[in-house]
Every structure is written in C-alpha cells, then in structure tokens.
C-alpha cells in the first residue's frame, strides 16, 4: 500500500536487519504532538515520504541506508529540519521539538 501509517515504537513484525528504520516522536515542550506531518527528504533535499504523527506524536519510516533530513510541519509552528543517518540493523531514533 502506498499510504501513510501512523508511527509508533513497537518493532513487532519489523525485520530491522532488512529495513533502515527511522522513527521518533514530535514534542512541544514535554507534550507529544499528534497530527504533525513529518517529511523524509533524501540527501539532495528531494521529498521521499511523509507521515502524520500518531496521537502520541510518534512516526516511523522505512528508509534506505544513508543521510536523510526530517522536516516537521505542525500547526502554529515553523517547519523544523533534523538530520539523521539510517542504516540496516539499527533503528535511528529522533526526537523533534517544535
């Protein structure tokens, strides 16, 4: 399927040896931000994917190994960019503050 799934931290059913997982949580202060949009941009800045955050502010991508940018859009906030490196066999965890 070609659509967005809500993020989350449960890795059940995910073979992290075969997937370069990037996941995390969007926060405003200590509060999780649900319904924010996290965009995954490749090393050239090209859009690759986007997911809305879950009610607990979580998101997840199945990327490829390499350098990526996470761009987060949330209501009443400026977009926030975070750099992240993904690789097989490891879950890249990112906390984003808006």
């Amino acid at each position, binding site marked *: *399927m*070609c659509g*967005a799934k*809500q993020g989350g931290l449960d890795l059940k059913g995910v073979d992290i040896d075969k997937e370069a997982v990037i996941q995390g949580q969007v926060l405003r202060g200590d509060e999780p931000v649900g319904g924010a*949009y996290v965009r*995954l941009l490749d090393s050239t800045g090209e859009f*690759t994917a*986007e997911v809305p955050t879950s009610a607990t502010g979580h998101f997840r991508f199945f990327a490829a190994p390499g350098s990526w940018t996470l761009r987060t859009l949330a*209501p009443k906030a400026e*977009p926030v960019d975070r750099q992240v490196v993904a690789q097989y066999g490891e879950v890249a965890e990112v906390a984003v503050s808006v």
Partner: protein
Amino acid sequence: MSRESALVSADWVEEHKSDPGVVLIEVDEDVSAYDAGHIAGAIKLDWKEDLQDHVRRDFVNKEQFEALLSDRGVASDDTVVLYGGNNNWFAAYAYWYFKLYGHGDVKLLDGGRKRWELDSRELTDEVVKREATQYTAQEPDLNIRAFRDEVGEAIGVKNLVDVRSPDEYAGRLLAPAHLPQEQAQRAGHIPTAANIPWSKAANDDGTFRPDDDLKQLYADAGVDFGKDTIAYCRIGERSAHTWFVLHEILGQANVKNYDGSWTEWGSLVGVPVALGDEPGKA
C-alpha cells in the same frame, strides 16, 4: 480544465460546504483518519474497499460505481469536492475516477487534509448519513487511462513521466520509504521515462505550486507539451496527482494515467527496464 475549475480553497469549502448540491468526500488509504475527524458534512470513500474490485486487480466497474455512489447519497449532478491525506494522493485518484466515469462537476480541495489541519480548521467525528440516490455513471473514458500495451508502444514516442521518488526511479528502492519494501519483481523504470516526482508539483503544505512553476518543472525535465503524455508511479495514485496537474490544472490534452504502474510493469516478463538516474534509451 483549469486551476479555477478544478481546485477549490479551504475558504471556499468553509463557505459552501453546507450548500445543497455540494458533497464533500474524504478519500484516504487509512480511513481511520476520517473516523477520528473530518470536515463537517463530509462522507468517506475507502480507495481500496470502495474503489477496487475485490477479486481482480481492477477498478469497480460502472455498475459497481453507480451502486456505491447511490448508496452514499451522491447524485450525478452534485458538485463533488474531494480531499484527503497523503497530500491528496488518493483524493486525486478518486478525482480521476469520477472523471473516468463522466461525473460533471468535481473539484479537489487544494492542500487536502494537511493544509486544513495545519490551519487548525475544524474537524468533527459526527456521523454523516446522506439519503440514497439513483446515481448514473457514463461509460469509462479511456482517453485518460493507459494500459500496459499502450505504455510499451509509448517508449521513445510519447512523454512518459515517472512520478516516483528518485530512489524508486533509479531502482534503489521498490516502494515509498515509509513502507516496508515489497511488490514488483524488478526495480527500475520504463525506458525513456522522465523522473518528475509528484512532490515537485506541490508545496510542503500539500497545495499545488503556481501554473508557471509547474509548466517550467515539466518543460525542464524534457516533457514536450506538443506530445501525448502517460504518467505512472507504483500503483497509480501518485500519478493521478500528476495527471491532475497536467490535465486539470495546466489543461494539457491527451494525458493518461497508467494505473497498472510499476507494480505491473516491474513484474511483466520480457519488457524493457532501465536502471539508474538517466531515462535510458528506447
């Protein structure tokens, strides 16, 4: 078609959403988004459950489409306003569908659900039930739908536009990066196809870019506006978004969406496939 006739703004929707003869429809892959909150009065369509045949890989046929819209209370002469998540991918796909079956007045909400949410506009979880209608569809308009044989003949002849991400185009990924990798047997793209990711036609907030920027985008990537065009992606919904840009916003004639897309082409025996970042030769 033009931007003015095909797109409406969020302000327009706020103003007209309760007008008689206006039907708001949210189209998502994940319909839990609608259930959690939707624009007041909007009904939902599930792109898969409602719009795909449950046995064969194909659309619902004319009779199924008529039964669906009759049941949901949509009339043939209603103004249908579509919106959804995923930057309107599935809403654009449904828009293409309504056009395929000859619906007269159909529009897309610019920016879809995302712009609406980022503006902190109101969403409701109230259940919407419309009176059943007798919806009449037209025979499918195959001038906007391409099949695989026609795509093969278009190599090196027509504009082929691959709207997936550069990594999918080059064969480094088989699916969008927010999903486990799956699907087609082979990675790559159809030879001679230009890679113009759907996302280049949209702003970060999901709204479409201005007409002049859009024309420049496709021209710079080698699209010859004097030729016919076929757009494809992986399963046909992102390319419906690009079909919408070319055919509905820019008013290009002879633009088709190849909904078989890469999941079909990349699994066919004996067809040409190009790898890497260049279009490749016919």
